[in-house]
């Protein structure tokens, strides 16, 4: 049987980086192939080449035996390729229907036929059991729903090959399970599925075959039957990785971070945090589990002084923190690893040494009155780059030149190297590769053991379950349950996250 998709010796270089080097992969009809690899291993580049979003330098890509010309997206679509993109390719100010029909619009004469379009979207939604409101504006929808739209968009033409680029990064465990089921159904109906992820659990659950990429090359090919998660991780990173976080028991002391009756609005002026109470003691990690969009972001920003509080207070060691004053909050001993490192964690165009002192550049020893002390700055950077294993050509390199994992290490290094009483870590390992995740987790535990109160907010349930000493489940702007790590079992937490009672 000839393969549905045949990638032969594809090579692609970007200035300074070899993204893909002589990669050959094939996918057959009805097969689910997982493409696994660390950040920057070249997974996205490879599938974008298939979809015509990237032109490979050399090599061949054939679909159903037919050679596709490089950079021809509409040609790929016409040959039955659908793709769900890592960064949603949706127009926020347009409706669900408009987004789905874009590129091949039903027409009556020269005009759009929105009635037919709407009917088509409803039929599509029915067919695949993915519920969407055709008239809703995309910007008003939760990420999980946007994901469904992306999938419907990809499935609209009868696809033979569906490519999914990290589709589960933003989903809840339940939504992920649903998506995996959709993938199985599609494969059963003869569709070939090429699925990018770096979550090993999903690979084990759904893939028929696994191809692992490392540094732009195929590091190995295996199947879930032949290996386990440890084996996959090793193949991915090229060395042994400890997946299970090793940590001693917490020795909690007095409550350092106390949140009382906190109310916060979201960007659209709707109440996102409504009367939240939480205590984090020195020497423990409290993990906030919850589906994204239940007020976690607003909670974190209100604690750190980046978003106005409507009412309620946040105390650090008994002292009230000021509202809307991040610098003062920080100087009271609150470190913040922000969710969006590009926006709030780093100045991309600054050097690493400057990024490492972003919130203390004006203090001793980095400045004397208003003159900066470049020597202290460089010493600090050299030490932290070494200590936090930041892989960079030099401390003068701009942050924008680093990979995602190393950027995050710069943020973590800056926040955890200071004398800190409270650590607020929001999605600290999002989009970070396995090796760096392991490192960041160990740093958070080290901060805990040094006596800091750590508040960990993460969309990754596995991360919460493996790191937290206590799990606080957040739903609808409130903490609906606080569980001890021992009693926090995956299914139970998942149900609480969905707003169901235990």
């Amino acid at each position, binding site marked *: 049987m000839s393969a549905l998709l045949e990638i032969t010796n594809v090579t692609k270089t970007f200035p300074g*980086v070899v993204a893909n080097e002589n990669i050959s992969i094939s996918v057959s009809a009805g097969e689910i192939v997982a493409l696994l690899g660390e950040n920057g291993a070249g997974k996205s580049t490879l599938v974008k080449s298939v979809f015509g979003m990237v032109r490979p330098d050399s090599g061949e890509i054939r679909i159903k035996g037919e050679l596709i010309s490089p950079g021809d997206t509409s040609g790929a679509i016409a040959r039955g390729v659908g793709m769900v993109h890592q960064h949603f390719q949706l127009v926020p100010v347009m409706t669900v229907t408009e987004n789905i029909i874009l590129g091949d*619009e039903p027409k009556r004469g020269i005009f759009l036929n929105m009635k037919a379009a709407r009917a088509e979207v409803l039929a599509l939604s029915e067919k695949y059991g993915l519920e969407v409101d055709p008239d809703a504006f995309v910007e008003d929808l939760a990420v999980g729903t946007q994901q469904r739209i992306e999938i419907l968009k990809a499935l609209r033409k009868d696809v033979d090959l569906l490519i999914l680029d990290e589709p589960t990064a933003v989903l809840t465990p339940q939504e992920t399970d649903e998506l995996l089921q959709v993938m199985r159904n599609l494969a059963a109906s003869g569709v070939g599925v090429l699925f990018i992820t770096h979550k090993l659990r999903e690979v084990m659950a759904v893939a028929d075959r696994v191809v692992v990429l490392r540094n732009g090359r195929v590091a190995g090919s295996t199947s879930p039957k032949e290996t386990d998660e440890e084996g996959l991780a090793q193949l991915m990173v090229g060395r042994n990785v400890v997946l299970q976080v090793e940590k001693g028991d917490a020795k909690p002391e007095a409550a350092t971070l106390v949140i009382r009756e906190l109310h916060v609005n979201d960007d659209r002026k709707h109440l996102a945090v409504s009367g939240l109470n939480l205590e984090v003691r020195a020497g423990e990690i409290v993990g906030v589990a919850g589906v994204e969009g239940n007020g976690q972001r607003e909670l974190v920003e209100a604690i750190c002084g980046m978003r106005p509080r409507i009412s309620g207070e946040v105390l650090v060691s008994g002292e009230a923190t000021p509202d809307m004053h991040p610098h003062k909050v920080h100087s009271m001993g609150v470190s913040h690893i922000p969710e969006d490192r590009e926006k709030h964690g780093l100045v991309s165009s600054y050097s690493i040494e400057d990024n490492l002192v972003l919130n203390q550049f004006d203090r001793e020893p980095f400045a004397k009155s208003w003159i900066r002390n470049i020597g202290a700055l460089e010493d600090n950077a050299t030490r932290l780059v070494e200590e936090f294993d930041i892989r960079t050509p030099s401390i003068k390199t701009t942050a924008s030149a680093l990979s995602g994992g190393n950027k995050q290490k710069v943020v973590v290094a800056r926040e955890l190297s200071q004398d800190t009483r409270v650590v607020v870590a929001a999605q600290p390992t999002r989009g970070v590769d396995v090796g760096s995740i392991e490192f960041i987790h160990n740093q958070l535990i080290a901060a805990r053991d040094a006596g800091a109160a750590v508040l960990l907010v993460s969309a990754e349930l596995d991360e919460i379950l493996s790191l937290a000493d206590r799990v606080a489940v957040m739903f609808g702007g409130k903490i609906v349950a606080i569980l001890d790590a021992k009693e926090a079992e995956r299914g139970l937490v998942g149900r609480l996250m969905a707003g169901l009672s235990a």
Partner: protein
Amino acid sequence: MKRFLTFKWILTLILIAITGYLYSRDGVITTSVVATALIFGLPLALAAMVGIMCERTGIVNIGIEGTLLFSSFIGFFVASTTNNGVFGIFSAILAGVVTGLFLAFMSISWKMDQIIAGTIINILATGLTSFLYKQGHTAPTTSPIDIPFFSNIPFFGQVLFMNGPLVYFGLVVIFALYVALYHTSWGLRSRAVGEHPGSADTAGVSVFRLRYLNVALAGAVGGLAGAYLSLELVGSWDRGFTAGKGFTALALMIFGRWNPMGALAAAMFFGLAQAITNQLMFADVAHIPEQFVNMLPYVLTIVVLAISAGKVRPPAAEGQQYEKEQA
């Protein structure tokens, strides 16, 4: 959004009421003022369409002024040398397309900063036309066409149906653009490209091609506006005679929230303001120094921008280069 909508309707009703009252007081003058408002407002409206067509696909065009100046000059020059008004009009439109393509070339192919690209067009148009211009030429101009039957309707007849051909054509273009933008696949794709080019690209729509097409078409509309200015409204050409209309148009585009109908309404409001001041001066009612009167459009621009500041949302991808390949 809702509040703004009611504000818009209230404003419209007030304007209609005032016009009605004035018409009952003095029909002849009111009719002529409103008719003048249309012919003054039209070039602004067309110029605002240029901005809308470009910015809706994500290209900032501050070179509208240059397009107007260059195309009105070429139109006048060709009409004058060939003694043929139709040639003049087509040359003006062609000249507009040339400036559009030049902008597209600089900002899409060369990936230049779009503000700088627009400025280059403005400077180039000013310099080139001033250099080539020779005084003392005349050109044939268009003459008004009365639409049978409709032109006999009181008030509306004289305002809408006794105009030069380019007024009719311009209005048709504006309405067609409105329908096309919201009810055709071209419009849907254009808006998608201006908001989130990746979404269009991944749906198989060529961002590059669509941007080129729209910027060139916008240039044609700008050329039409230029032809209207030199061959219909004024009937001559002078150095720098577009007097900032291209910039005012950008403000109108923003005030009209990048919607052709909104921009048309805003342009008509501007035209009305100008027609009223002209009337006041002419009737010697107001003794305002001319300089202040000439300032009016610019003062209004500032007021309008201040009112709409923060309330409007420009196309999200405006002014950004689209890089298809990212690592």
